[in-house]
């Protein structure tokens, strides 16, 4: 048996001794410390306040208040969370459940989406029912704390929509010593309910349009009231706080029966005092549990979970190294013969070499398609099935080429396929690989050329073992949220997916879903619509689509010319529509701008989602512009005609990270009046893409995109066709490759 012990420090050494019990040591492991600093701790740079761009230390989020924003108990502070912090809070007090998702969109801009449920508050079918409210907050930190200066922030609370919690504030926070933090601010709207010291204009109460519109007519108008509080950090885990709240809770406390949003179920609690107390406990993983004493009458509690999208459990991945670029071998020893005596011999030898390269690539999750040799250049066409960071796939492919292709080949051209067509050509010299494999990655990026690949053949050669068909069977879940009758509905079942490649770029694909359990069909609410029902029949689709053909299509992808990509899809395009869809994309490899055009002619499908069609048919189409701003932000504008025949545009902005995370929002503006659109006035939503590789620490191309749409209406509805070109083609173009290039040697 072996054991490790640490002997006492002799003059200058600390030895770790590997000793076998009863036998003499066979190895001595010396941890060396120079004698003059034997007593010192020689840890490396582990700064407490590491610059945010390093992002190695775990990000510590400030306490979040009952509104899901960095704050005290009910009140906000001028604190911000670390950049890209995503926090989920679930809080409860006095029949009120508040669930919020808070995202630090920029170092100074905090955004939050909140869903509140007031139980037994409004009149329902049998007595009192729950009142649900969605709200959205923004906070911007104007000044950061520094020396004597406090941090100052301005915020808009519940600034879109019906405005149950509508209020604005200006707040300042100052740390005194290392434990105490003092906050003071001025509030408007709901934050001026009690103790107003002045006023500025009148604050209207009417709902704009049909709701869902930013309430710009209210901001910073009406009474102004002060609020404040302080928090004291007892130790690393425990913080106590107290605040003086200017929120009157006029509606919920029943204090003023004429207050807007007063429900028959009020009062939910009795507002006896303006002072709140709170206790926050932070667990090891960063989760927080808070307990509050509120308004002298009631107790509340909240759980906060937090994660930072710019941090990761295993930032560089736990996958192994892959091959190095070390030996150069002659053609013969690798199984090639260049040039060869006879054509037949050459073919045979080359087949060996190709097969070896193909197998080596397959071990790394890369699928070989074809290899063209034209000494001194070789062109490898492949498909990346494993690496979400595309430079990692390219780097590994290049290293395999360096190992398996003879020295006569001095230039490698790697052509990744997307939907069977070449997306780009990445050209790297063998000499650069050899010289730069231990150098920082950006040195290689400077030497690599990325070019258009329209002219490169994608036909598989004899060595290719590309599987034409594949299929998968697995569980699926589908959620529907925000219906006041039932805030979360879930369907779950089995999904069978299959695809067959008639040619590399011609694919037949289908997906069949069988619902096993769920309540998505229990929507009983009548959804009024002045527009053709292009999307609002989702309950019927769920009710009748027990076994549904989600899609069944033939798709063709092409390269009509340099910088041009095309798609044509025919069949049952999505759950609600069948027809024809065509798309053309112009995207030069090194351009941050791309322009696309899509035209579809579709007919609505039967509710049972089998092969039948309904009567409604329409032509929809959009012209789209995509732009990568280069600082992590990405914008998209689509303008055209939507499914209900309305014309307009959708604007989307996303914040994108090199690790695959994406968070963004979109809004559509069409020629449909707010009255015709209905509740919500216009279409908007949030979306988030979660990369599996970030969660697991291993390479993966899987990702899950979640779209949160407050309301499903018929205005600004786009066809949900699969495999739209831009998002797939962009992966192998210069802007995205440069962002993720750090992984090329991984």
């Amino acid at each position: 048996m072996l054991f490790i012990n640490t002997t006492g420090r002799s003059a200058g050494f600390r030895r770790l001794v590997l000793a076998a019990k009863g036998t003499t040591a066979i190895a001595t492991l010396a941890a060396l410390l120079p004698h003059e600093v034997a007593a010192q701790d020689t840890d490396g740079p582990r700064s407490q306040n590491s610059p945010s761009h390093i992002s190695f230390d775990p990000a510590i989020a400030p306490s979040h208040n009952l509104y899901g924003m960095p704050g005290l108990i009910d009140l906000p502070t001028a604190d911000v969370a670390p950049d890209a912090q995503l926090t989920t809070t679930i809080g409860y007090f006095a029949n009120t459940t508040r669930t919020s998702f808070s995202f630090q969109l920029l170092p100074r801009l905090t955004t939050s989406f909140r869903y509140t449920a007031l139980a037994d508050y409004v009149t329902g079918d049998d007595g009192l029912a729950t009142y649900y409210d969605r709200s959205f907050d923004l906070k911007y930190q104007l000044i950061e704390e520094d020396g004597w200066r406090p941090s100052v922030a301005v915020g808009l609370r519940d600034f879109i929509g019906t405005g149950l919690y509508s209020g604005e504030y200006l707040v300042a926070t100052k740390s005194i010593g290392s434990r105490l933090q003092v906050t003071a601010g001025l509030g408007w709207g709901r934050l001026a309910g009690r103790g107003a010291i002045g006023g500025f204009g009148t604050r209207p109460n009417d709902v704009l349009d049909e709701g869902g519109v930013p309430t710009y007519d209210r901001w910073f108008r009406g009474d102004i009231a002060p609020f404040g509080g302080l928090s004291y950090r007892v130790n690393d885990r425990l913080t106590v706080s107290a605040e003086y709240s200017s929120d009157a809770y006029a509606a919920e406390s029943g204090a003023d029966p004429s207050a807007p949003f007063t429900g028959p179920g009020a009062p939910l609690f009795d507002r006896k005092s303006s002072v709140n107390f709170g206790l926050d406990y932070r667990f090891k993983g960063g989760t927080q549990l808070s307990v509050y004493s509120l308004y002298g009458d009631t107790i509340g509690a909240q759980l906060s979970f937090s994660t930072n999208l710019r941090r990761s459990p295993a930032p560089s991945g736990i996958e192994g190294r892959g091959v190095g670029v070390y030996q150069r071998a002659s053609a013969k020893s690798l199984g090639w013969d260049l040039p060869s005596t006879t054509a037949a011999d050459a073919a045979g030898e080359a087949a060996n070499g190709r097969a070896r390269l193909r197998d080596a690539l397959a071990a790394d999750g890369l699928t070989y398609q074809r290899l063209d040799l034209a000494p001194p250049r070789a062109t490898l066409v492949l498909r990346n099935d494993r690496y979400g960071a595309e430079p990692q796939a390219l780097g590994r492919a290049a290293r395999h080429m360096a190992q398996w292709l003879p020295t006569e080949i001095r230039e490698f051209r790697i052509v990744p396929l997307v939907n069977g067509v070449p997306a780009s050509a990445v050209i790297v010299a063998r000499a650069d690989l050899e010289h730069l494999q231990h150098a920082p990655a950006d040195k290689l990026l400077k030497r690599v050329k990325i070019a258009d690949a329209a002219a490169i053949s994608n036909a598989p050669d004899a060595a290719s073992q590309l599987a034409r068909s594949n299929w998968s069977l697995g569980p699926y879940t589908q959620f529907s949220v925000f219906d006041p009758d039932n805030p979360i509905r879930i369907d779950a079942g089995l999904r069978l997916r299959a695809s067959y490649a008639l040619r590399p770029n011609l694919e037949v694909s289908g997906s069949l879903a069988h619902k096993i359990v769920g309540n998505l069909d229990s929507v009983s609410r009548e959804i009024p619509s002045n527009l053709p029902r292009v999307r609002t029949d989702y309950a019927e689709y769920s009710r009748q689509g027990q076994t549904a053909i989600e899609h069944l299509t033939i798709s063709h992808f092409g390269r009509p010319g340099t910088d041009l990509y095309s798609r044509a899809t025919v069949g049952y395009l999505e759950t609600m529509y069948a027809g024809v869809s065509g798309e053309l994309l112009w995207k030069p490899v090194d351009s941050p701008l791309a322009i696309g055009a899509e035209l579809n002619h579709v007919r609505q499908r039967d509710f049972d989602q089998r092969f039948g069609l309904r009567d409604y048919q329409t032509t929809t189409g959009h012209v789209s512009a995509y732009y990568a701003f280069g600082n992590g932000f990405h914008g998209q504008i689509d303008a055209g005609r939507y499914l209900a025949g309305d014309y307009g545009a959708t604007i989307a902005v996303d914040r994108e990270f090199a690790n695959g995370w994406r968070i963004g929002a979109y809004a559509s503006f069409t020629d449909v009046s707010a009255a015709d659109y209905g509740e919500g006035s216009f279409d908007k939503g949030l979306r988030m893409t979660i990369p599996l590789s970030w969660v697991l620490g291993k390479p993966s191309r899987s990702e899950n995109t979640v779209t949160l749409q407050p309301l499903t209406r018929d205005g600004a509805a786009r066809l949900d066709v699969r495999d739209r070109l831009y998002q797939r083609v962009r992966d192998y173009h210069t802007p995205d490759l440069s962002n993720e290039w750090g992984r090329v040697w991984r």
Partner: protein
Amino acid sequence: MGARLAMSSPMKMNNRLRTAALTLCAALMVTACSSSAGKQTTDGASLGKAVFDQFMSRRNATPQQQVDLATMLQTSRNALAILALENSPAPTLLQETERGSGAQVFETAAGQSVTAKRGLVIATRGLGQDLIATEAHGTAKLIAQRTAGSAQRRMEYLNGAGETVTLRFDCQIKRDRIEPIDSGVIKTTGRLMVEDCNGAEGSFRNTYLVANDGYILSSRQWLHPQLGSATFQMLKR
């Protein structure tokens, strides 16, 4: 019957994976249908399952490897080394698998690797928190020649956001005394060299025991802001 050496992987998945998974599940509470744009998509259900599988496998697997070190030292043709991370319970055995361009690559049985140029660690792979690349030509030259001097270092990492982070340091190299070393089949003496590096993000100290031909036989080198330093020692050259 030689002595047996129990090895375990120096890399531990930490609690942050758990927090990430929990928050993910919370965020996924409001998932809608996944779209098919972009890369291959999964649903909430299969994503959750993948996270759960990974979580369970991390808990169950602590790769233990019984290695007959004495036999390995006698029969192995490749160089052998040991790596002991600061915060890790046990050292790990590495075998040289590749050599070229002045560098040697040492790999563990689990596929993690250390790349070193004549004993100076310039990269690691598979630790989850890797040193991606190092530029320390000045340091390497001074250490090999066992002379004092100053040099600059550039060390490159990947952060959780997928971005490349470069840390730069100014280093002072000093000569120290002669020390014997008895490690594996290596029994000799070497010169102790000390490198003190300072940078905007902090400072660290590396110590090296250098053989007469300039090869670093044993050293304590700082690798990564999260991992800290590691002892890297040759058992067989």
